[in-house]
């Protein structure tokens, strides 16, 4: 057997619709190739062990983990990152717009991964119920929001409306609340 890949070799794949031929060692992880070789820094690295979901990407439309994916496995496959979900003119996808409108983010570091994961969910289950959203999004940790806004954003993007489900109105339709984050009031209103 001739060791043929110890030096960088060509890996051909598609990234956000564009054919790429990368000269990298095939064991390089997709997260590093995206950020360091392609300048696609929307995909974040958090835990580096497949738990946190910050590096969520789509491979042939399927949700995967860029920090656990050697790029050699992707020969001939198509990768979509958060940059490929946003339109080329920077227009937000309806799901991204729902994250903004429903306050599905705070510090923002987990947001690209949340959006990629939820994009995959809505492609597979266009109208999920709340438990399906929560179950699917288990793999995307957020340390700011408490998940309320994230779940509401995904439900809103699927066409669900407040009143139909356990959802608050979007931020721009909420009365100003000097008391701030009163979850008990929300729970009472939602499940009276």
């Amino acid at each position: 057997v001739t060791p043929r890949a110890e030096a960088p070799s060509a890996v051909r794949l598609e990234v956000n619709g564009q054919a790429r031929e990368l000269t990298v060692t095939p064991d390089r992880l997709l997260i590093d190739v995206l950020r360091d070789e392609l300048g696609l820094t929307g995909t974040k690295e958090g835990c580096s062990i497949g738990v946190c979901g910050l590096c969520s990407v789509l491979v042939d439309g399927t949700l995967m983990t860029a920090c656990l994916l050697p790029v050699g496995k992707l020969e001939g496959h198509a990768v979509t990152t958060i940059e490929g979900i946003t339109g080329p003119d920077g227009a937000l996808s309806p799901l991204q717009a729902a994250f903004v409108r429903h306050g599905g983010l705070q510090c923002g570091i987990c947001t690209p991964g949340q959006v990629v994961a939820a994009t995959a969910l809505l492609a597979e289950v266009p109208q999920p119920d709340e438990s399906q959203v929560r179950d699917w999004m288990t793999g995307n940790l957020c340390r700011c929001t408490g998940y309320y806004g994230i779940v509401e954003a995904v439900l809103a993007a699927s066409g669900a409306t407040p009143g139909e489900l356990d959802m608050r109105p979007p931020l721009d339709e909420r009365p100003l609340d000097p008391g701030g984050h009163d979850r008990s009031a929300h729970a009472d209103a939602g499940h009276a």
Partner: protein
Amino acid sequence: VTAPAWHRPASVDEAIALLSELGEDGSVVAGATAHTLLRKQGLVSPSAIVDLGAIDGLDGIVLTPDGGLAIGALATLRAVETSPIVRERAPMLAHAVGRVATVRIRNQATLGGNLAHADPAQDPPVILLALDAQVDVAGPDGRRRLPLEDFFVDVFETVLGPAELLTSIVVPPVPATSLVGYEKFLPRTADDYATVSVAARLDVEPDGAVRDARVALGSVASVPMRAAEAEALLRGSSRRDLPIDAVVEAVTAAVDPVDDVRGSAAYKREMAGLWTARLLRRLAAAPPVAA
């Protein structure tokens, strides 16, 4: 650090030939989830990686002539979880495989990789032991089929030789009158490894007699294990009066857990008995099975 050579054989035979030449230097990846974690931790540092991802036709899930299932080693955990025939023929297999980590991981990890990884804290081996699964192995000396129970040797270690591949997982037909269940005790987070997991199968006669039984446990020994003495106690009993106290005693004596972040050995030992009892009570209380 030199990057490993990366090989993408197009067939099982080509992979076996490559691995035969590489010997101990070769390392096999399928979905590459667990393997990448082991590399990051420095637990493996192969000079050559044999990536099975370019082999076609090793991810099928089909019915066998006797009504069982044959699952290609490269079927993803997600494919097993969502397969209509797995859900119909072995719903608890679909359920237990669906308890692994998160959908993002299950989309990438494969059933064959999961078994060959031989992590005693994984979910699939436990339910597969309770279902009497067998594995097909291909190597330089030909092919063989062995019970999954004989496949695991130690933590991260199986009977596979350096040039052997697990190619298929065979699940015999589950009798319509069998009660099958899986419990995964997760005191921390929903995507965690089990602190303790248990699968049980009771093959029940119309009069309630337990003709045969399986009790398998995960995270409580160096390998996914069957509790033979507990099974013997259940065999010949009645679902209306299962010898649960004696089974708990037998399970507690059989397990050999270690202290880790998921609990002390003593705690896991107690939880192994407790979750076995809970599972058996739930199975016993299930609606009567149609003959």
